[in-house]
């Protein structure tokens, strides 16, 4: 490490140029961070899909309802531990832009189905004691600045009340947190019994879909098929699939964002590589005489190559790492779209990939100039000076 000051002194020579190269690499990695977070958000929870959970919906489409009597029947199927219903409520809070997931559920069963939703025991008790009680996730509580005790009015668009009115009012009795960063904490959950009694007579007895827990994840597909078998040729045929498949399908419906992101990133990195590489080549070209001198003094070709590579690595590597750091910091400040993403964070795995990319960039940008420096003939270099 006695050569460190050589690398450092070279970077200090043209401060403006070093600053500009550093900044452009920094911005590129800032972009990388944001794109990772966006891609993760659009993946809508694929990483945390429950391995032992299935989604059962109407075969024709998600918007067709299923009878509530199916719950008991599903639970009789071999391999099924428990089944619980949920329904798309689809109401409007203040204005349609404030879109979030709302569903009437059976409190204890639903929370048992999703153990990653962490709700304090006392809040669960309050929920069980309040018919109009609603439990909301941390993400939407923060987004709308809701606190326990607030009364939230929702305008129904699908489920009108018995008296024909559209206004449903709920009281917030609890706020749940997610066990992991990617856990969905943007759900608005209220009581199914209250929903069923208050909704119009003709609409009673139906639910949107069922979430099913199986005893053996390896048998998921088999059990899903068994469920569909059970209701084949009935008025409401089902389509059961693993939660992962369901979430994946939804993410795919959002669009092939992954490919676009990869494309953008590739273009960005290619551009940065050009800039950084050109800068390195420039610095080497300017120092041909000096390189000749240190070779004359006795530095081997390989040592000189190493010095150039080290310079490139230090510059690009440090800029990349700082860029990733700034990205992590900014992203933790929250979702830039103001709520369109149920979760928004910079996955640690992607951070590691970013760090690796920074190093690769450093090597790639310096590779060609380093080779040039290595091959430089001493006598010729001295003559040029």
């Amino acid at each position, binding site marked *: 490490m006695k050569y460190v000051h050589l690398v450092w002194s070279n970077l200090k020579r043209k401060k403006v140029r070093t600053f500009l190269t550093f900044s452009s690499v920094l911005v590129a990695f800032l972009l990388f961070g944001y794109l990772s977070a966006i891609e993760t958000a659009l993946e809508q929870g694929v990483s945390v899909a429950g391995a032992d959970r299935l989604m059962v919906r109407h075969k024709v489409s998600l*918007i067709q309802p299923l009878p509530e009597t199916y719950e008991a029947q599903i639970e009789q199927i071999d391999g099924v531990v428990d089944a619980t219903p949920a329904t798309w409520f689809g109401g409007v809070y203040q204005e349609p832009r404030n879109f979030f997931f709302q569903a009437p559920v059976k409190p204890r069963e639903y929370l048992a189905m999703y153990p990653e939703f962490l709700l304090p025991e006392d809040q669960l008790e309050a929920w069980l004691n309040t018919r109009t009680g609603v439990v909301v996730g941390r993400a939407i509580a923060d987004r709308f600045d809701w606190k326990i005790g607030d009364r939230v009015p929702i305008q129904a668009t699908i489920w009108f009340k018995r008296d024909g009115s559209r206004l449903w009012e709920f009281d917030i009795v609890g706020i749940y947190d997610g066990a992991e960063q990617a856990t969905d904490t943007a759900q608005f959950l209220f009581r199914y019994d209250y929903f069923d009694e208050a909704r119009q007579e003709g609409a009673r007895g139906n639910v949107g879909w069922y979430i099913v827990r199986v005893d053996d994840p390896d048998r998921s597909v088999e059990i899903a098929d068994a469920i569909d078998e059970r209701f084949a040729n009935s008025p409401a045929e089902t389509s059961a699939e693993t939660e992962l498949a369901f979430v994946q399908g939804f993410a795919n419906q959002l669009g092939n964002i992954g490919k676009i992101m990869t494309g953008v990133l590739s273009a960005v990195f290619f551009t940065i590589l050009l800039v950084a590489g050109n800068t390195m080549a420039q610095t080497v070209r300017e120092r041909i005489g000096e390189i000749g001198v240190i070779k004359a003094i006795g530095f081997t070709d390989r040592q000189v190559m190493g010095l150039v590579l080290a310079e490139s690595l230090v510059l690009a590597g440090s800029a990349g790492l700082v860029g990733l750091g700034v990205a992590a910091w900014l992203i933790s400040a929250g979702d830039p779209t103001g709520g369109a993403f149920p979760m928004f964070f910079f996955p640690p795995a992607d951070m590691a990939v970013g760090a690796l990319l920074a190093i690769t960039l450093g090597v790639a940008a310096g590779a060609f100039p380093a080779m040039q420096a290595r091959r430089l003939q001493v006598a010729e270099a001295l003559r040029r000076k």
Partner: protein
Amino acid sequence: MRWLRQVFAVTWFGLQTMPQRLGSSAAAVFGIAGVVAVLVGVLSIAQGFRAALETAGSDDMAIVLRSGSTSEMVSALSRDTVLVVADTEGVARDARGAMSSAELFVIIDLLKRSTGTSANVPLRGVQEQAFEVRGNIEIVEGRTFEWGRNEVIIGVGAALEFAGLDLGSSLEVASDRWEIVGVFSANGGISESEIWTDARILQSAYRRGDSFQAVYTRLTSPEVFTTFKDELDTDPRVDLKVSRSSDYYSEQSSMVTNLINVVGFLIAGLMALGAVFGAVNTMYSAVSARTREIATLRALGFRNGPVIISVMFESLLLALAGSAVGGAAAWIIFDGQRAATMNWQSFSQVTFAFRVTPELLVMGAIGATLIGLIGGIFPAIRAARLPIATGLREG
């Protein structure tokens, strides 16, 4: 006059020596090209989506839903209600009568061709006047469906996006088989994401009795909309939500548009920032490569002004070349690319094509020009202010 001549002389000299600086010049051009290409590409997504919506909606077409509905999907209208709407003042009339179509809107589950996973595809039941009301529907393959039969036509977007939607195949919906007899276009509008059939067929398949979900009407003129809306709002027989189709579609897409815009501009903004740094850097390199040359010119008597202008001019030239290359790349790669995304309000897929519009290309060129100017000005000033003796020694 002599000043101007100096500008030309220095610039001409600079251009002649550019081949020597091919490396850094090329880096500058491709650097800017990369940025412009990505910027234009990302923004073309938003443009494409907007175009799909704008083509669909127009100021003289109205959509009528049940009051309080956020989309057709959650609306419900009785037969009496739709007749009242068709009879309202302002609805245009042609040989067949009122230009009004009462429609049903449901979603069915089909697999995406690209990923093989499930997607919600819109299935629309229409009445005879549906085609006239929209005015831009054209059968491009096969024929239109026969009224009363289990036949459907599919939009070109839907045909490209979803498996099983091929002319001649049949669609299995619940326990029914419906034959696909034609493919239609709608001038790029969102109707192209849909499957159409006779409303009566849909009613019976979904056991809707005689109820509908939406009424699409064409008005005699855009101005007449207010009268039309007022009449329906004040009619005690009905409780409706009346909107211009253009307003309805922008409301429908507000979430997605917001998402695309925020993400698009965030990415574009960061890229622009990075581009400025990169460009200034490359320009600095390009100019330092010419330090001795510029010092020599100044030693010979050329004034600072022409020197600065010459450097800026070269910088601009490189930037414009970059924006041309980048714009062309964006157009080749992005224009016409099909994509599909989710309309959250109706839970259904909307297909659209990316659009690289002339506006975007101009924006790219302006951006590149600005980058070129910013990139060139600092090195230019530095080159002009450097003591001549120092400059002669450098390089």
